[in-house]
């Protein structure tokens, strides 16, 4: 039982990342009709916003310590962060320690800006082109973004830890009546799940309960009619592209402490996220979220030793097997709408 609960927690955690990326993908597809293969790169750039803020906060000046030597035997250059000299060692260290949560604020304008530039500068020229063209150009864009990040940050993963207060694990089992240390789960992964729930809830509330969201939803259903009412739907869709980029970026920022960011982390999520979107139903926001969590949980269960001993290698293919089964039985995906991607 404890193993099942642990894998459900794992699944919810993995599903959080899938759902956040798929949500942004679906927003872009639902509003602009663009298949955005650069969305994984936006997730990666979000993670590098956390890396960048951490580096900015760690900007240092050097002093020479004659009592110590470096690897060449020269007097050691000791680095002190400016922020520690300005605010004192304790407060300065605390600010540096909280780099990842602070990067949430840092990343939002950057990601919206990148989304705006991407949409206005490149993607708008491909609205009326076939999906194959859109895939090619956005995939190319993703590679360019990757290479830029690699050029400036290198190919190695860059450790970006969570604040000290979130290190270690929460003893979940004691809440459910298990012995201590039977079901423990990392604090930061719980934070990630809660954060994803808040972001998903906020996006849905924004679309459901604001006039802007109502217009966007109307535009997703019938763009032409909304345009005929004199509403500049293109401008709203551009803003939605920026919001989708910010959602992907925030998912990346908070993911940075889970796995050290590297330049190709976006590609690792891209294919899975597209499977999530297709399984959820092209253009369906609730479908993307539901499929994200469903596939995350199934993937976790498929990694269990008991399952792997029965079906060796199932952990590598489970997502695609489920995708095939769902598409055979429900060709539009779990919550797909009629007419989307069917012309």
């Amino acid at each position, binding site marked *: 039982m404890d*193993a099942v609960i642990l894998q459900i927690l794992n699944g919810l955690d993995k599903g959080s990342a899938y759902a956040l990326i798929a949500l942004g993908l679906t927003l872009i597809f639902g509003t602009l009709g663009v298949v955005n293969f650069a969305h994984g790169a936006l997730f990666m750039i979000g993670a590098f916003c956390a890396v960048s803020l951490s580096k900015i906060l760690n900007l240092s000046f050097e002093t020479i310590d004659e009592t110590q030597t470096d690897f060449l035997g020269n007097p050691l250059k000791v680095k002190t962060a400016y922020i520690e000299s300005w605010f004192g060692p304790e407060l300065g260290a605390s600010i540096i320690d909280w780099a990842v949560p602070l990067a949430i604020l840092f990343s939002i304008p950057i990601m919206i800006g990148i989304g705006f530039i991407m949409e206005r500068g490149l993607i708008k020229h491909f609205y009326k082109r076939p999906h194959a063209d859109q895939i090619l150009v956005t995939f190319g864009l993703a590679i360019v973004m990757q290479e830029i990040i690699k050029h400036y940050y290198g190919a190695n993963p860059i450790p970006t830890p969570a604040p000290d207060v979130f290190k270690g694990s929460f003893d979940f089992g004691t809440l459910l009546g298990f012995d201590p240390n039977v079901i423990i789960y990392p604090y930061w992964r719980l934070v990630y799940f809660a954060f994803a729930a808040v972001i998903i809830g906020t996006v849905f509330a924004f679309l459901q309960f604001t006039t802007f969201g109502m217009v966007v939803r109307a535009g997703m259903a019938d763009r032409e009619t909304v345009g005929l009412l004199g509403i500049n739907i293109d401008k709203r869709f551009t803003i939605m592209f920026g919001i989708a980029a910010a959602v992907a970026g925030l998912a990346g920022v908070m993911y940075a402490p889970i796995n050290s960011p590297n330049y190709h*982390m976006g590609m690792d999520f891209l294919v899975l996220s597209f499977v999530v979107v297709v399984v959820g139903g092209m253009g369906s926001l609730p479908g993307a979220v539901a499929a994200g969590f469903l596939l995350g949980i199934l993937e976790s269960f498929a990694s269990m030793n008991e399952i792997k001993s029965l079906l060796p290698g199932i*952990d590598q293919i489970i997502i695609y097997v489920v995708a095939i089964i769902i598409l055979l039985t429900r060709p539009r995906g779990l919550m797909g709408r009629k007419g989307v991607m069917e012309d």
Partner: protein
Amino acid sequence: MSKSNFTRRGLLKTSAIAGAGVAMPTIFTASSAAAYTNEPTGSGVTLGFNVPQTGPYAEEGMDELRAQELAVQHLNGEGDGGMMNTFSSKALKGNGILGNKVKFVTGDTQTKSDAARASAKSMIEKDGAIMINGGSSSGVAVAVQGLCQEAGVIFMAGLTHSNDTTGKDKKANGFRHFFNAYMSGAALAPVLANAYGKDRRAYHLTADYTWGWTQQASMQAATEAMGWETVNNVLTPLASTDFSSYIAPVLNSGADVLVLNHYGGNMVNSLTNAVQFGLQDKMVNGKQFEIVVPLYSELMAAGAGENVQGVIGSMNWNWQLQDEGTKAFVKSFGEKYGRPPSNSAHTCYVQTLLYADACERAGTFNPCGVAEALEGFEFDGLGNGPTLYRADDHQCFKDVLVMKGKENPTNQYDTLEIVEVTPRAQVEYAPDHPMFAGGELGKCNPGA
């Protein structure tokens, strides 16, 4: 009236035969025609450095390339000479190789076997590379080694740790300076038993490819010989990024040690995930839970950050060694590039010198002569104490380092500390050891 028998056609035939006859003695002398692939014809000789310049191991590849460039400088008599000053063989004179100025070309393996073969082929066929050196993957090493055997050039593998490289996939034209998975197990097991006790239960997570399999088998055999029990071995897909669902079952498996048979990005992520799950804070079977990473590299340790603290692993070489060879290399490399060299950089630097030295001692670039000079070659002064290139399988034997993640690093390069220098005798094995069974070294191929 006499009539001549000469005709125009007959004259041409006679001239051709006579010409061929005059030329015959020089065509078949070694000095006037290619007796082996890419025999140098001018005053220079070209080495081919095949390293990952793009992809996830690009940082490691760039460090290999830095070291190879440094080696070329030293061979050509530039710079301070580095390890040439401490090398026990004194055949190298700082005037290139056999009087030929050393040049080099580079290829990008992308850490993909097909791309690595293509770049090696291009360097051999188009650039005239006389040997291939470097790389960061066992899959790549095995693939390129096969190509070099067919092409008739010497291959000096870079960072390749699978037993298979000099086991079932060994080749007469290939040599490996780097240690292997068996040696990691043999060096680590006594240290682990000493540090954590002989009554331990190990759970292995293993990357599902050739290196992972041989690493796991080697660690299991070595630790079980010390009295440990293996609870489980779970294969993880190479493309995995989040290992949480593989680590969760470890919690209640009864294991008190987790062995991560992962390298590169896999190692960084699996170790990070294991630490996040608080495994090192757990007490199991009345003992502190421990994590082991059998193969370390400085660059990957830096990627894992503070998660490596206290974690034991093994390495081929480390810049903190205090022998004269290491000090000379670290000084040369550090002054040129402002950073200490990685163990893959050391391997590639040393291999370049060893190849050049073998050419000098053999008096030829002919790969069969060079291979013969390297086979059974014993030397010192290149950083790991007395070293042997065994003739039976072309595996290098030398001391192996057991490392531990440093608790209080003082800078970005200060991530690991040396726990023990395991003597060469402890990691040696017979050429017919079952873990290296299958495959034949075959005969040296000079190509051409």
